[in-house]
């Protein structure tokens, strides 16, 4: 019964999640028995030095990569052992993605890119919700533009809108500000935070930028494939402090 209780609060979660690449001498443990929960209506940042397994954690959680052992859940659905078709459908209906390189289809205009997941599913667009999302990202005047006619920041806002348009259970953002200047990056982060606070969405973001992480409600820290720490209501400084300690530890050990 505890499972059901947690499922109500958690949009996604992992239990004893491990991911191992290679075998023998080339064996690399990317994730080592990670147990974590992402609560509904919360903006979580995953941080850690490069190679800590933060991207792998996200990919496994999002059904883009398969775990070696352990379990991952989106909503009430167990991902491990799910066939490709069901995984695809799950990603389409319950997960939103924002990638570092905007990953828009150059042949479609902004609006078409935003509604792409619904069009693929052949689902009707919830017009009121869509208007709200478009309004929140501030793209109203540019919906008929093609990606090549938009700036990097605008493209990333289209990508965010696309992630939210289908009202997913959870949005995964992989270094969403990595390719942006700090102003555009700030806009995107504010937007992600607003989507949690005002639209009630759940967002999980992988980043290595302490400033980006400071927009989140909670920061979890990964190192060597293990969950090592957690901060709530972070500031850029507190995150930076925490990161420095990893570095120091890395140097002394």
């Amino acid at each position, binding site marked *: 019964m505890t499972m059901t209780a947690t499922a109500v609060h958690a949009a996604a979660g992992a239990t004893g999640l491990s991911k191992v690449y290679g075998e023998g001498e080339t064996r690399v443990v990317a994730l080592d028995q990670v147990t974590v929960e992402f609560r509904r209506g919360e903006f979580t940042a995953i941080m850690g030095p490069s190679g800590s397994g933060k991207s792998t954690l996200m*990919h496994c959680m*999002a059904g*883009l*990569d398969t775990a070696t052992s352990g379990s991952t859940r989106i909503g009430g659905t167990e991902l491990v052992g799910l066939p*490709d*078709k069901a995984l*695809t*459908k799950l*990603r*389409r*209906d319950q997960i*939103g*993605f924002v*990638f570092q*390189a905007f*990953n828009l*289809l*150059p*042949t*479609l205009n902004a609006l078409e890119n935003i509604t*792409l*997941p619904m*069009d*693929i*599913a*052949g689902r009707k667009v919830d017009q009121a919700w869509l208007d709200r999302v478009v309004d929140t990202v501030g793209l109203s005047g540019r919906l008929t533009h*093609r*990606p*090549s006619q938009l700036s990097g920041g605008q493209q990333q806002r289209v990508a965010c809108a*696309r992630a939210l348009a289908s009202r997913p259970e959870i949005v995964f953002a992989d270094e969403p500000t990595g*390719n942006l200047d700090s102003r555009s990056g700030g806009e995107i982060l504010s937007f992600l935070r607003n989507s949690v606070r005002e639209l009630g969405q759940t967002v999980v973001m992988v980043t290595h930028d302490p400033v980006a992480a400071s927009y989140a409600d909670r920061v979890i820290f990964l190192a060597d494939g293990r969950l090592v720490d957690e901060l709530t209501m972070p500031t850029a400084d507190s995150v930076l402090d925490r990161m420095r300690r990893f570095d120091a530890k890395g140097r002394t050990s």
Partner: protein
Amino acid sequence: MYRTALRNVLAHKARLLMTTLAVLLGTAFVAGTLVFTDTLGSAMKSQNAKSYTDIAVTVSDPESARSIYGSGGTDSSAPVLTEDVRRKIAALPGAADARGVVSGFAGIADQHGRLIGDGFSTTGTNYVPGPDGSDARYPLVEGRGPTGSGEVALDSRTAQKGGFKVGDTVRVAVNGPVMQLKLTGIVHTNDPRVSAGGSLAAFDTATAQSLYLSPGRFSEVDIRSRPGTDDAALLTQVKGALPAGNDFSAQTGRQLAQDQDKMIAEATKGMSQALLVFAGISLFVGIFIIANTFTMLVAQRTRELALLRAVGASRKQITRSVLAEAVLIGAIASVAGLLAGTGIAAGLQWLLISAMDTGLPDGPLVIAPATVLTAVGTGVLVTVLAAWLPARRASRISPVAAMSSGDQPATQKSLLLRNAIGAVLALAGLGALAAGSASKATGLVAAGAGVVLLGVFVLTPLLSRPLIALFTPLLRRLYGMPGKLARENALRNPRRTAATASALTIGVTLITGLTVIGASVNQAVDKASATDLTADYTVAMANFSVLSSDVGTQIAKAPGVSASSVQRSVSVRVGDDTKWLTGVNADTIGSLVKLKMQEGSADALKHGQLLVSQGGDPGTQDLKLGDTLAVTYPDGTAGRLTVGGVLASDSGLTGTLAPDALIAPHSKPAAGAVGAAGAMAGLDKVLVKGEHGPSAQLKQALTDATGGNPLITVKSQQDLRDESRQMITSMLNIMYGLLGMSVVVAVLGVVNTMAMSVFERRREIGMLRAIGLDRRGVRRTVRLESLLISLLGGVLGIGLGVLIAWAANGLLRSSLPGLELVVPPLQLAGFLLAAAVIGLLAALWPARRAARLDILDSIKAA
């Protein structure tokens, strides 16, 4: 820089595979053609050389052949080759012996009365026994040589086909009634006419002479020399021994063999050129693919090339490095193509000689140095030419591009100039087509067709949008998002889509054009035979020689015949000119053929007058109504003929028609020096109308009336139509087969473009998969894009094909009045469907690859 080129080729092996294959197929076609025709030519030459080894000098009388095949011997005063002449030659000091040869045609019936072999190559000759009673030219396999008028020897192949054994009775026909002859021997022969599907009947000399010429007369005398005699010296001796005023042709055997070699070379050259046209088409199609590949490769390598520029490579070096890649690929593909082509030629030789038993001579494969040079040279040249523009474009990449982000610039050069050029070309080509078609100028039509094609190729990027839009509503309805994505992808790079589609357009254009012309000609022939010919049956010789005059009378008497008319060609002299008259039965011809008159009445024939066509003989003045013609008949008598009517140009029968009763008695040439030359003067055909229309009974009655001669054919209107249809169909099938290669190359192009597009768009595909497009959706997107490109190529090809067929019809109309454009909708729909299937098949592999892409790898791909 060259090392970079080599490394690039090695690094992009998979991506260059289709390009290599395209060049390979084209060069294989070229090499295959050259090797095959060279091999065939050399085999024929060596066979030919064998048949002349024992002939030092040969003398032939051209007049004999003319009289045998009925092509009109009129000069009856010239001396002929007689036994006297042969003896005189044989007695020459340099001559070992002189063989008198009689040759003509002889149809042999199998057990069911059907002709053995093909009508054109049935051969009849005389058997000349040597001192031992056998003829060295025709070595006996079994039995003995024929000695009397009731005996015949056959070649072994014919005997086998007919199931004849020595002692059997064989039905042999020349142009009259069938003879029942006893088979005395089976002989072997190297005669190419026989081995190419004909038959050989050997009679004793006297019988052959009476059948074909006249007693004591020969077609040819072959002389063997005494040892130590020079052929040229013997030729001079022989020429001295020939009667004065002859028009014989005397040659040394070597000369004859050389002449034959030249003819063989001409024939194989003609065949090789015809095939090379199709090979050229395949290579031309290949150009589109190569150009496309290099354009894509250069685009994908923009950063890499910019980096080279940034570290100091000059523009020339960049161009050269890309061209070096092209040379390398061209060379590899051409050498492989040369090998493949040699294999194809060997396979073809085996197929034609061993498997299908066509009687073509066998011989070792000939791979001439010229073949190697041509195949490899063409392959490399085509590849380099096609890579030229992409290489130039590569050199214009600025070094700064190395520093820019991985995202490819979406900007595209304007198509404005291109569209303008295309429009000018297309319009100019259209104008030339229309003008050429109207004025029957073949050259103008051909040039126009080429220019229109080029214009449309240049315009295809512009045309792609509306044409692809044509199919999109259906796609969206059926396939939803993948349909829309496919459309957008097909349109995102109009140049690439156009080049890929154009490769297919070429083949479809030619196939459609031929099909439409074929359908149009078929219909015109049907119409003409239905309206112009009212006879139920046409009786003629299978080898287009003349029928014996008796056949006309026999058929007229056959049961069930209501009307019949002969058609007899007789040449008369009018002053210094020769004029051909067509003798027809004045009373019945009107009921057998529709005679349309421009002036006067067809009844004039019944009054012993002529019906003439106008504008028939260029250079001679047209005869007018009422003109009188002073003629000298072949038998030397003179006559006066009056023009009683002028035939319309669309009359069912044209030429100069005369009442047969009037000219037949004078049609036999006058008695020559020896015997009655031209005993063979006869009929072109006999037209028959039955009392109750065509029936199997009537056909049998007609066959019986001709004495069951296997060389005489009785054909109904339907038979004639079927024959023409069949001829057109088999010709079309050969063309389809040859053009098929260009379609295969075009398919490779589609595969290539799709595979490269998938590679270029793998990041998008990864994203689509991440946000929820399943594998099937990805596959479908790729397949539908390929389908759209192929349909674009198909639609354009069908349109162009119909257009070119229309122009070509204009050219043909002069020889086929009543020819109208017939567009067979089912067949064209079939071609479009085939294009669609090709598109789907071509995308199988790229679509699979796209669907299997790893999502994470793809998203992260630069």
